[in-house]
Every structure is written in C-alpha cells, then in structure tokens.
C-alpha cells in the first residue's frame, strides 16, 4: 500500500507534465518517465512479468519511436504554445471533466470499494505461458500476424516514395 501511495502521485505528476509541457521532447520524455513508473508499480504489486514487458516495450520501443519521429519532424515550440491558450484549454476541460466525473461516480457507486482486499498469488510465468499457448493460442497467432503486417506496413509507409534518380547517362 505504501509504495502505491508514493508511486501514484509521481505517475500522475509525470503524466501531467507530458500533457502540459510545451516542448514536444520534454513531453515525450515525461511520458516515458510516467510509463516507466507504471512499470515499477506493476513490479511492486507482484506482476513482475507484465512490469518488465511494459518497461521494455514502452521505454525501449514506444518512447524511442516517439522521440525519433519528433527529431525527424522537428516541430516548433511556438506551435505548441498555442495549446496553452485559455480557449483551447477550456474546451478541452469541458470535454474531459464530464468523462472524469462519470468514471469517478462509477468508482464510488460501484462494488470495488466495498470488496474485501483479496490477494492474488504472484504472477507465475509458467502458468502465463501455458495459458498463452493453449487457451489463447488463436489470439497469439492473430497478434503475430498483426505485428508482421505492421512491420511490413510501417516499412512500406515510411519508404521513400520518390525513387532516386538514376545515375546512368541516357543513351
């Protein structure tokens, strides 16, 4: 409970920074920090495997991808300053606050608060792997196909469309 009480505000602060910071690279790095702290949270509540996978995928791949595309596109800081204008912020909050209210009301009204705190045994990877390749085998295959398609698709998307001009002299 104590690690959760320490980690939750940190996660929220980092996420707030990712939403608020004007410089895109800062926002991306704070997102990485927030996701890494979520991974630490998973580790502290016994989901070791999920935590490490979260760290590897989000910090090692997604954050790097975002940061890298920021470098390639080089967005200006001024363009992002505009989002701090009161009007855009107010519009955003008008849409966000009802959603938050609904979520919190559901939380207060719902069962979870009255449930006794049950303790699941620590996540066993042997069991996880067993389930993954028996019950969820079709899903694993589907994800595999999806990832392959994504790899090919991303490579095709990001490919240079204009072919480089041939160096051969015309005859």
């Amino acid at each position: 409970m104590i690690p959760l009480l320490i980690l939750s505000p940190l996660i929220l602060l980092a996420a707030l920074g990712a939403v608020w910071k004007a410089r895109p690279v800062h926002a991306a790095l704070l997102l990485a920090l927030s996701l890494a702290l979520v991974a630490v949270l998973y580790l502290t509540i016994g989901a070791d495997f999920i935590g490490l996978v979260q760290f590897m995928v989000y910090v090692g791949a997604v954050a790097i991808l975002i940061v890298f595309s920021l470098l390639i596109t080089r967005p200006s800081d001024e363009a992002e300053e505009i989002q701090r204008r009161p009007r855009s912020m107010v519009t955003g909050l008008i849409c966000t606050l009802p959603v938050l209210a609904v979520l919190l009301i559901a939380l207060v009204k719902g069962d979870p608060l009255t449930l006794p705190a049950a303790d699941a045994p620590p996540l066993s990877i042997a069991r996880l792997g067993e389930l993954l390749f028996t019950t969820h085998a079709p899903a694993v295959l589907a994800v595999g196909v999806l990832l392959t398609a994504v790899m090919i698709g991303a490579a095709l998307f990001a490919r240079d469309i204009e072919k480089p001009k041939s160096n051969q002299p015309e005859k």
Partner: protein
Amino acid sequence: MIFATVPFPSFTLESLPQLPKLLVEWLLTLVGAPDWLVIIGGTAAMAGTVVGVFLSAFALLSLVERKTLARIQNRLGPNRAGWFGILQPVADGIKMLTKEDIVPTKAEWLLHLAAPILIVVPSILALGVMPLGREWVPVNMELGLLFFFSVGALTELSVFMAGWASGSKFPMLGAMRAISQMVSYELPLIISALGVIMVTGSLRLSDIVAHQEGFNFGIIPNWNLFTPWGFAAGLIFYIASIAEANRCPFDLPEGESEIVAGHMTEYSGFKYALFFMGEYLGLFAIAGLGVTLFLGGWQAPLPFLGWVPTWIWFFAKLAVIIMSYLWIRGTFPRVRIDQLMRFAWLCLIPMALLTIPAAALWVFTGKGIVSWVVTVPLLMIPWVILTILFNRRLAPATRTYTFADS
C-alpha cells in the same frame, strides 16, 4: 553490554567472492544489529563486491585494450606510468577528475546531467543478475533474462537524452545514429537468445547455466555453442553484441573521424568518464550474457578442471570474448550506416529467426544424430544463399579499362 560470540562462517575458495558479504553480516551480528539491518548490510556488501570487481576490470581493460591495439599496430602501447604502464588507468582517472566540467549554454542542464548517470545505471543493474559463479549469483531473479533486456532499453533513452540535451549538432547526429543502430541490433540479439530460452524452459540465468552442465563423450562440454542451432545463434548474438556495445566495426555513433565523439561531444571531465565507464560496463554485461547463454557460464571447459573455482572460469571466458572484440577492433574498418542497417534487417534478423525452428526441432527430435541431420541443413540455407549471392551477384566484376589499354 555483552557481545554475543558469533562464530565466523566458514568459506572456501569457491565462495571467496562472498567474503565481504559474510564479513559484514558477521560484524553486524556481532554488534547485535537487528535482522533487517543485517540483510541490508549483506546485500550492500554483495552489490559493492560486484561493482568493485567490474570497475577494476574496467580499469584493467582500458589498459589492456590500448596495449593490444598497440601490438596489432606494432607499437608498445602505454608503458610510462608504472611498471608496463600498469598505473595508466590511475593517471587517466586523475586527469578526467581534474578536468573542467563544461555545460554548453544551449544545453538543458538537468537532462545533460542525467544522461551519463542513466547510462551507467542499467549496465550495473544488468550485471547484477549474472551468475558469476556456482555460489556467486548476486540476484537470482526468475525473470533474469527479461530483466537484462528491459534495463538495456534504458540505455537508448539516455543516449537520446545526451544527444538532445547538449543542444548541438554533432551530439544530435550521433544520438540518432546510436539509437537507430541499437534498436536494429537489439532484435537479432533477443531473437537469438530465444532459442536458449526455449531449450532451457526458463528465463532464470542460473537455470540456463545449470542446463549446460556435463560433457558429451566425456570431453566435449555440453554448452549451447556446440549444438547446430546454438552455434548459429551464438554467432549472431556475437555480431549483434558488438553492435549493441558500439564497438568497432560498428562504432558509428562515436565515429571520431566523422562526428567528433557522437553523443558525448559536449561532455568533459567526470561526465565523459561516466559515459566511458557505462560503455565498458555495458560491454562486460553483454559479453557476460553471451558467456552465460552459449558458453556455459561458469562451467569448466574440460572434465578434469572441475577443481578450479567456478568464478575463475566465468571471468576467463569473459576475457576471451573481450580479447576477440579487441582483435576485431584492431582489424576491421568501420562500416557505413546503410550497410549497417541492411546487415541487421536483411541478414541478421532472418538468420536469427531461423534459429528458433532449429532449436524447436532440436528438442523435438531428441538431441541425437537425427537432430543434427535435421537442423544442420536448415541452418545451412542462408549460408548457401549467401555463398551463391557472394559469388554470382555481389562479387566485384573483373575490371575493364576503356581507355587505358589503347
């Protein structure tokens, strides 16, 4: 106050690296410290031992590397500071520590400061899960291998932070090169490790080492390297680990002839030393993982050498791997960035993927003669294709001179 007399725990040559831990625990028990303090003290002493051993190995390697490269180039190498230049690392350290620490005006000081620290931390963390000896496993984690690759992911982000926070062109270019290289070569690295996980059935590194115990025909060690899929995967792992550690011939991120020092250009003094340290600790970590996965970790190479303490074997194998890195560094020129990327994506990753079915077949057919017959041709496919391509398509054509002959 009466001290309870606590007998000092017995230790052998095998558990010699545990001595600091035992000593601290014994002392703390002697003065009557509470249990949690004893545990914390013992853990700290063990961590201190690992860090101390690898930092001294880093100091030694920085000298041995220069000596070896010098010998390859028919020079003597550092030989002024102390006997055979043995004090050269000390001199380097003093020089680094006394240098001015410069932060460029356009740099973001917080990220600029965090980057060198964040590059050392994952390397040390990764070294912590390595089984260094039969009784010397600092942290025996169930998910050791996954942990290793997860903390390795932090390196890329810290390289980016170093490049971006310096607020200058060369670090930026160097960081972009470094990240694209590390991301590309992490794939073959992980995929080639998958076969080992499949055969062992565990992510715990000490299990992987224990699985390679024993000898075939009484003389050939039962290491993963001496199986067809293990040989292929080990070779791919070796090449990818050179790239992952940013060593020559894949040292483009800090190609000194092109982009000064890559992401480390704007660093000086102790921060630069931290980068250097992080790079070498990362080298130890990745080479140590290669030893653990394919070369039997701390297992003795010959049956009659079992009496030698096992941690000596681990470090001996580590030394051999690192000497081969030095040899390669002294021999090959740096590759071009497009060659580097093409090699990773078109050559190493497909070959690494092929080792997974090979490992599966190996287990499925019972690790006997049949397995050899089945897996060797499977693994030879890319080799044959490469040979044909090499001789037919990629081979340089015989040069014809249009004007010189007349």
